[in-house]
């Protein structure tokens, strides 16, 4: 590996971009947009370049950097990625330019100038990279909490409808979870102090001897924070509001990347730091996950608004991810990780198109649309494609992950998997019903004059579609990165895949 | 007689002073009750000085008197200012700031 500080460089680039944008004149929105786009594209390229340097079969953290930050508390600026984190960082850097390009005019409805919008987006990108790259629990927490702030302003400042209420709900809900996690982090810090010196290093912390009661409490502190973030039933109610109010681009980042921090955290922290407590709580969490799948799907069916609908579909999808994680099998874990990546893109597609539809029509109510397939065929087909991706049509990337999750769960918890499988039927309903209402049927009054996607929008959505398609048929590039980490994680936490029952019988 | 009896007197006077602060409305009387409390504390100091056999308590009591004198000056100045503005020395009338 070269001695480039990949992660720091990657993380700092958007920040520099933000600073640059800050110095642009306020009136020149176009310059801000271009600068933001250039930055994010550049970061995306850098991210891909970094990924090419990643050694797939090396289970250690890579691109590791560590500098003392607050030595008093043993806090380091320590970053590094394993396969899972790398995939999520890729997700972040790839989605960012898409969001910028797709939401070219998103900032226009905001309280502030476009400049502010892009500064916030770029800051957010830095934080997203940081949160996945951090290997120091404290650093992770810092990013985890700090990233709320730009999102908060993005929702509250540039959203629509009850944006400030939604922003506050989002922030308070997340802060509440974060503070619970802080309590756990403090406890970890103290325990590490008792056992050989204060540290926040994830690996060192995972070797602590913690009594089972304490583990349970600390686990809950972390888990609730992540469950709110993810969001898992019943901690989900902030999400529909936030997604409803936010601009499509913000929603994409919110659901596509930010919420992944929750599931990522479950793998990285809940699992490795508290293996025993994880075992204790697995049944409960699986129940919650299964409820999320079914509940989210039913509520999605019951929505009358596109954005809320997509939000609820995500709740269902996050149920799948959580289920995959807590199944504790390689398929479950790899599937869940891949699911995080794929869900990012399929939600991006859904949200962006829904956003385009809403901005053209001036409403995101499903009932305001009808017959779009004849008015705006390209947009309609893109939406259809996104919908298919969301319902995990085989051949599209989400199928691979969803199936892996299910199969991985089935081998250990068949009942959960069976109930979860019902989700795929409900998925058909929650996708096809709105598709029928908005794309099919006679052209609804008010829809006649809608314009189809323009070139910019097509360019923005094309990579999303391409990724969804390619990974559907050829997920190996990602799976090969994810698998070694997953195997390593499970083996150090003492989980082995259940053998096929014929082999068990044989023994 | 037990020398500690002075302590009981001190405690009683302190209590009465404290209650006075709560129940009286004239700011000057309220302030006088505070002075009573300080005096009660002084009595305790003097008594403890005697019990402990050193003069630190008396020195403390002495400082208390000086400090109390200063406090009286400032306090009464404030009360007079209030009185001039409001034509009332009742502490209950000064209740603009609340909730």
């Amino acid at each position, binding site marked *: 590996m070269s001695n480039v500080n990949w992660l720091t460089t990657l993380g700092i680039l958007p920040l520099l971009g933000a600073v640059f944008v800050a110095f642009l004149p306020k009136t020149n929105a176009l310059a801000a947009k271009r600068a933001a786009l250039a930055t994010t594209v550049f970061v995306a390229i850098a991210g891909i370049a970094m990924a090419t340097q990643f050694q797939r079969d090396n289970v250690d953290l890579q691109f590791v950097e560590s500098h003392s930050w607050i030595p008093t508390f043993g806090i380091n600026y320590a970053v590094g990625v394993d396969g899972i984190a790398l995939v999520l960082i890729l997700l972040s850097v790839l989605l960012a330019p898409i969001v910028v390009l797709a939401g070219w005019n998103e900032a226009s409805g905001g309280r502030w100038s476009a400049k502010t919008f892009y500064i916030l987006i770029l800051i957010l990108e830095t934080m997203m990279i940081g949160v996945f790259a951090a290997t120091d629990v404290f650093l992770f927490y810092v990013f985890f909490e700090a990233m709320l702030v730009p999102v908060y302003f993005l929702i509250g400042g540039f959203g629509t409808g009850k944006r400030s209420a939604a922003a506050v709900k989002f922030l308070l809900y997340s802060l509440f979870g974060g503070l619970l996690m802080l309590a756990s982090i403090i406890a970890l810090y103290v325990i590490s102090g008792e056992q050989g010196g204060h540290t926040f290093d994830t690996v060192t912390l995972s070797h602590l001897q913690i009594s089972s009661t304490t583990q349970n409490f600390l686990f809950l502190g972390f888990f609730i924070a992540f469950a709110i973030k993810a969001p898992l039933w019943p901690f989900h109610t902030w999400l529909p509001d936030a997604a409803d109010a936010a601009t499509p681009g913000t929603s994409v980042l919110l659901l596509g990347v930010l919420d992944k921090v929750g599931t990522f955290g479950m793998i990285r922290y809940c699992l490795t730091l508290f293996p025993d407590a994880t075992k204790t709580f697995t049944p409960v969490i699986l129940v919650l996950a299964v409820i999320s799948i079914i509940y989210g799907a039913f509520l999605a069916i*019951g929505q009358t608004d596109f954005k809320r609908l997509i939000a609820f579909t995500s709740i269902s999808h996050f149920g799948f991810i959580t289920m995959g994680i807590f199944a504790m099998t390689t398929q479950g874990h790899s599937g869940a990780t891949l699911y995080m990546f794929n869900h990012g893109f399929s939600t991006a597609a859904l949200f962006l198109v829904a956003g385009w539809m809403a901005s053209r029509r001036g409403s995101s109510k499903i009932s305001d649309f009808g017959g779009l397939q004849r008015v705006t065929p390209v947009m309609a087909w893109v939406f259809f494609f996104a919908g298919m991706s969301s319902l995990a049509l085989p051949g599209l990337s989400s199928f691979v992950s969803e199936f892996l999750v299910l199969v991985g769960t*089935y081998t250990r918890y068949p009942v959960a998997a069976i109930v979860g499988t019902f989700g795929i039927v409900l998925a058909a309903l929650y996708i096809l019903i709105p598709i029928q209402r908005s794309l099919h049927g006679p052209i609804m009054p008010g829809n006649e004059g809608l314009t189809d996607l323009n070139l910019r929008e097509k360019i923005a959505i094309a990579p999303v579609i391409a990724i969804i398609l390619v990974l559907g048929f050829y997920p190996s590039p990602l799976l090969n990165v994810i698998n070694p980490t997953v195997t390593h994680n499970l083996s150090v936490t003492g989980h082995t895949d259940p053998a096929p029952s014929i082999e068990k019988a044989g023994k | 007689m037990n020398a500690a009896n002075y302590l009981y007197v001190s405690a009683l006077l302190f209590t009465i002073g404290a209650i006075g602060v709560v129940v009286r409305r004239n700011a000057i009387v309220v302030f006088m009750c505070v002075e009573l409390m300080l005096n009660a504390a002084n009595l305790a100091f003097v008594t403890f000085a005697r019990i402990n056999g050193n003069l630190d308590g008396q020195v403390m009591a002495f400082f208390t008197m000086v400090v109390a004198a200063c406090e009286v000056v400032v306090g009464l100045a404030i009360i007079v200012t209030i009185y001039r503005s409001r034509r009332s020395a009742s502490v209950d009338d000064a209740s603009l700031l609340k909730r």
Partner: protein
Amino acid sequence: MTSNYLVYLIALPLFGSALLLLAGRKADKWGHLLGTAMSGGAFVIGLYEFTQMLGRSNEQRAVTQKLFNWISVGSFQVDAGLMLDQLSICFVLLITGVGTLIHIYSIAYMSHDLDRRRFFAFLNLFIAAMLLLVLGDSYLNLYVGWEGVGLASYLLIGFWNQKPTYATAAKKAFVANRVGDMGLSLAIMISFATLGTVSFAGVKEHAGQASTGALTAIGIMLLVAATGKSAQFPLQAWLGDAMAGPTPVSALIHAATMVTAGVYLITRSNFIFDAAPTAQLCVAIIGAITLLFGAVVGTAKDDIKKALAASTMSQIGYMILGAGLGPAGYAFAIMHLLTHGFFKAGMFLGAGSVMHGMDDEVNMRRYGGLGKFMPITFATFGLGYLAIIGVPPFAGFYSKDKIIEVAFNAGGIKGITLGSAALLGAAITAFYMTRVVILTFVGNKRWAEKAHPHESPALMWLPMVLLAVGSVASGFIFTHGNSLKNWLAPVVEQSPVHEGELLKPAVVSVLALVLVILGVGLAVLKYVRKDIPLVAPSDVSIFTRIARRDLLQDDFNEALFMKTGQGITRALVVTDKSIVDGAVRGVARLVRGSGSALRLTQTGFVRSYAMWILVGAIGLVAAIWVVTL
């Protein structure tokens, strides 16, 4: 053996589809030609592979092609691999052959549709997906094709989705299929958890080690999948509505190929069903129920396409029944599948031809006497009709009789019941098909004045003729020297057949023929001489009414699933708002409320503040008092 060409079977139509979809209007002029060419190309490759296969010994005929490693996580290893064996080649030829004919037919049939290019794109997509379905070398690969054909079916049913009912029909088909797909994915999961593999070869190899319970579970789940895709009871309801799609679609997808995927699945999984008798029995029962169900519904339909759809359902019931009869039946199930592919596709195309000439009128009560105006259509349709009712020597006779025969020979009550059902079905089939033919082609004309029935162009009747040839000849070819049975032998592992246990083949044939004649006669009596009212009479028996309502399948689904689902949805929406989010908001309100309440302690009176201090001090003193007790 490996072959490098298998992938092109799929790639050609897939490429055609993608190109047509992406090219947009620019491709309008040549899109249909490209689509047809792609399908035809696939057929050529299929033929090539078939000839290659013929040149090898029976055991060496299967060829495989591994493309790449698709999913590899831990022990879950799935290759993107293709396998062409004796079973799949039947399907490949059917799909590409009939498919190409229907492409050709569609060029003319859809010539006036602005979106013809898109139609061909979808058709190509279907061909690709269907080929993947039959070529995939593992259940998961099959699954991709399985849902792919579902998607294509959805798109084609809803091709004219500006009409809300058509859009609904498409959605219904997709959802019903998804229920089936759920079964398939569960089957795959169980298979992986039990056997550690999902490839056909792997499952076949290890199936013997697994417990019967697990195999039964897999079998039942596969059956669920089959019922969804093949419109079998209880997931049959979508097929009738699926006739909303353009008629070539009905012919290709909802008659000849896609709906038979369930039969393929069960036949392909013969090693599971053979080891799980319970599951196998379920298959047979479902098949028997559906063949009767479809037949009964077919008697009551006035819409020509729906009548044919009911017939399809019924005929697939026969196939499923055949496949459920185990090693003795697989070959006949496939045989019936193939013959049915010919004659039913032919009849659908005929129906399309009629509609083409009748301004898209589908109500048979408004036809009548069309045979004079559309001789070719009448002829081809008639040949198909003879085939389906099982008149020797037409194709249906060979295949259907064999199934009935095997059913009777299944032994015991099972055999008698299933055999009787199959026989009865044959009679009803004869009745309703006769009814269709009479109402459409015979008798006096009942159509409106402005209609000008005419024969369809050559591009349309040519495929019909070719299919009619198939309807006539295929049965004989397949049974000649047990050719198909032997051909399939390596795949379905035939056990020694106990022939003639209950009824001799001849007896069955005679019995069936008698019943067919009965059915035909009844229909002739009922419809030939009488005036057919233009509107279906309403003063009919309750049974007729129920049959017209598809034996209440929709009412049942609506009451049981839709209403419940809607109820749950509504309840959950309310729950989410008032209870789940309500709890959150409640906590927030509680905090705010206590804030407002505690705020009142700040009275503004300095004396009450002093009181607080005093009370605090008392509290401290009291605590001390307690601890120093």
